[in-house]
């Protein structure tokens, strides 16, 4: 299988000359974030962690004022990056902007936990991290069966991860089975059988009369 993520960091540009605004942000950030979203790619995540963690730590010390809380911010931000990466859309903005949003939201919620003893996370409601949300707002009325749609997603999320990836790829991202096979680096037969398995499980669940 071809490994797409380079293991090493991009070679550093020649020494940065003062007043020459040359960015140090690796161009691959968005690509890594997309790999995490689409393939749960741990190597890509490690590369993201390596780049962002020290900077989040710095931001945390400034905003939250203690080393322990700054560490908590790193943990919480990077956890959200891993778990919510599907909300990032490479066509709509830089990875840095999205990660900043995730970090600021986590920082805001941590501060509320400390100051107001309030456990409710409001950050993501105040500053949406779902880049598709604005579009969805308009489209929502077109879904005749919105509830069904949502219920379906709940079922889909109970599937094993490999099957989830295939179902979401085919039905939510509208990828062809060939594209998925290529993306996930598995034979097309594997995609087909995962899809079959997943669909029969979903049918079973949809047929059940009770929900726990």
């Amino acid at each position, binding site marked *: 299988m071809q490994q797409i993520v380079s293991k090493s960091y991009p070679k550093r540009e020649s020494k940065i000359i003062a007043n020459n605004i040359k960015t140090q942000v690796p161009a691959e950030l968005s690509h890594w974030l997309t790999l995490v979203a689409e393939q749960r790619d741990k190597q890509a995540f490690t590369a993201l962690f390596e780049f962002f963690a020290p900077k989040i730590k710095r931001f945390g010390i400034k905003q939250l004022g203690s080393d322990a809380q700054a560490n908590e911010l790193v943990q919480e931000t990077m956890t959200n990056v891993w778990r919510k990466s599907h909300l990032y859309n490479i066509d709509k903005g830089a990875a840095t902007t999205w990660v900043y949003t995730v970090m600021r939201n986590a920082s805001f919620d941590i501060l509320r936990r400390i100051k107001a003893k309030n456990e409710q996370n409001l950050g993501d409601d105040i500053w949406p991290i779902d880049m598709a949300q604005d579009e969805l707002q308009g489209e929502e009325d077109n879904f005749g069966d919105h509830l069904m749609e949502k219920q379906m997603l709940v079922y*889909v999320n109970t599937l094993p991860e490999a099957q989830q990836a295939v179902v979401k790829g085919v039905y939510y991202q509208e990828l062809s089975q060939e594209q998925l096979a290529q993306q996930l680096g598995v034979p097309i037969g594997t995609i087909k059988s995962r899809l079959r398995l997943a669909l029969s499980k979903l049918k079973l669940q949809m047929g059940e009369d009770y929900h726990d």
Partner: protein
Amino acid sequence: MIKHHPTSSVLRHFVAGELPVSVAVIVASHVELCDECRAAVQLLTEQAAAQAFDDTVMGEALSGLQSDTPIEDDEFFKAFDFDAATVSDITGSDAANMIESITEQSALINSALAQTVNEIEISGTRIKLPRAIKSIALREWQGLGKLSRARLALEDQELRASLLHIDKGGSVPCHTHKGFEITLILRGSFEDEMGSYREGDFMWLDGDHTHQPVTKEGCVCLTVSSDAIHFTQGMSQLLNPIGRFIY
């Protein structure tokens, strides 16, 4: 056409996450309605991100809160190596453990299971609520004449956030604000001595302003206030308990 907006300094603090929660909520609600401010917020967020993550951006000095990591750190650009202590205190094995424990988790698809309220019905019309308050509980509606109010269950020290509904032809007697009052119109319109305001308008008033809002068609507002309003005219002073009611 929205005419009244938060100042750019308010937007900057909003982007930095430095506003009190109820103020952040009302600014976010305006931004959701206002294309102009949404574009400004996007730009400010990009700038803030560059400042946080791009070391070549001339950001502010680290004000003495220097971590062990120098800003210009070649470590970032070496092949990944856990032995390189790139993060103060998040040492090699800590970082490895953190990455390990994070990547064991599955993706978090926003399920529709969270209790959220997207719209409410007020005197016969359905009103779409701002996204920012969808997870915040509303307390009982309380009415007084043409005024009714539902508080947001949002603990924010001395600040109070509410939904306020003024029925057709209603007004709030002339008053000043002891602290400040932010109003965002979600539906309808009102006028006062200073002008007229419609859907999406965001007004930040403080103790310097005296006004008497009147609404012909009725309105629903999101409000945040820091202190009771104070009625300023003869008979209205008898109404000062209402001031506490509105606050």
